[in-house]
C-alpha cells in the first residue's frame, strides 16, 4: 500500500511540475518565421499535398534516416536481449476460435489499410511509419492465432535490408544528379495526384516496408520466446 501511495504521490507531483511549466508558456505565438515560409512554399516546391510529408522527407530527409537508424538499433538491441527463448520454453497452445477467425478476417484488411496509408502518405495524413506499424500488426496477429506457423525470419530480414538500402540509394541518386543528399527527384507532378512529389512516395514505401518488416520480426521473436509461465 505504501508503495502505491508513493507512485500516486510521484504522479501528482509530476503533473504539478508539468502544469507549472505549461502555464508559463505562450501558446499560439510562434516566433519562428520558418514555419510560415514552409507552409507558403512547400506545396509548390515539393509537390506533396501533405505538408507534413514534404517536411519529413524533403526538407528533413536526413532526420528521417537518423530515425530509421535509431529504430533499427533499438529493435536489434531488444531482439538480442529479450528475443532468446526462455529456458524450458514450450510453444504456446493454439488460440481459440474467436482469435483464429478474427486473425483470418483482419489479415487482408490490415494489409490493405497499411499499404493505403503508406502509398497515400504524400497526399493524406499518414505515411511510412504509421503504415509500417499497421503492416507489422497484420503479420503478428496470425502468429498469435497459430503459434506454430511463423513467417521466415530470413525473408523479413531481406525485405528490411532491401528497403533500407533503397532509401539510401534514392538519397545517393540525388547526389549523382548534383543535388543535395535525399533531395526529391523526378519532378513534382500534379499536386494531389497519386504519382506526384517525385521520389517521396518511393522513400515512404521504403520506410514503410523497413519499419513493418523490422517490427514484425521483433514482435514475432518476442512471441516465440515467450512461453506461458509454469504455474
Amino acid at each position, binding site marked *: 500500500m505504501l508503495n502505491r501511495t508513493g507512485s500516486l504521490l510521484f504522479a501528482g507531483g509530476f503533473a504539478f511540475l508539468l502544469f507549472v511549466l505549461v502555464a508559463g508558456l505562450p501558446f499560439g505565438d510562434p516566433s519562428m518565421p520558418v514555419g510560415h515560409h514552409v507552409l507558403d512554399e512547400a506545396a509548390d516546391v515539393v509537390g506533396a499535398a*501533405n505538408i507534413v510529408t514534404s517536411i519529413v522527407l524533403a526538407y528533413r530527409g536526413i532526420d528521417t534516416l537518423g530515425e530509421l537508424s535509431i529504430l533499427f538499433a533499438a529493435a536489434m538491441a531488444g531482439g538480442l536481449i529479450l528475443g532468446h527463448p526462455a529456458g524450458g520454453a514450450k510453444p504456446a497452445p493454439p488460440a481459440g476460435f474467436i482469435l483464429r477467425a478474427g486473425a483470418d478476417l483482419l489479415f487482408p484488411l490490415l494489409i490493405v489499410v497499411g499499404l493505403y496509408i503508406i502509398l497515400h502518405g504524400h497526399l493524406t*495524413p*499518414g505515411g511510412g511509419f*504509421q503504415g509500417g*506499424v499497421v503492416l507489422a500488426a497484420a503479420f503478428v496477429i496470425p502468429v498469435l492465432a497459430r503459434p506454430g506457423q511463423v513467417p521466415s525470419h530470413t525473408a523479413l530480414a531481406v525485405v528490411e535490408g532491401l528497403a533500407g538500402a533503397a532509401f539510401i540509394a534514392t538519397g545517393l541518386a540525388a547526389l549523382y544528379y548534383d543535388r543535395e543528399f535525399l533531395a526529391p527527384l523526378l519532378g513534382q507532378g500534379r499536386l494531389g495526384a497519386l504519382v506526384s512529389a517525385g521520389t517521396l512516395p518511393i522513400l515512404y514505401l521504403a520506410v514503410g516496408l523497413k519499419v513493418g518488416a523490422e517490427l514484425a520480426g521483433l*514482435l514475432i521473436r518476442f512471441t516465440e520466446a*515467450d512461453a506461458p509461465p509454469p504455474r
Partner: protein
Amino acid sequence: MTMAWIIVLMVVLMLASAVAALVLRNFLGAVAATSVVSLGVSVLFVLLRAPDVALTEAAVGAGLGGFLLALALQRLGLWRLEVQEAAGDAE
C-alpha cells in the same frame, strides 16, 4: 463549445485511466489502461488538427506499446487473468 466538452471528457478519461494503471491489481488491466491514455491523446491530436501525429500515437502508443508491455508481462510470468487465479486457488 462542443470541442471544449470533448477535450474535457478526453482529459478526464485519460486521467482516470492513468490512475487506474497505477491502482489496478491486475497487470493486464493496467496495460490496457495505458493504451486508453494513448487513445485519448490521439483524439486530442485530431482536435488540434495534427492527424499525422494522431495516427502515429494510435498505432504506436495504443497498439504497439500495449502489445509490447503485454509481451513483457508474459515474459516475466505476470500474465494472469482472474479466471486463471481462481483455478490456481482451487488446485
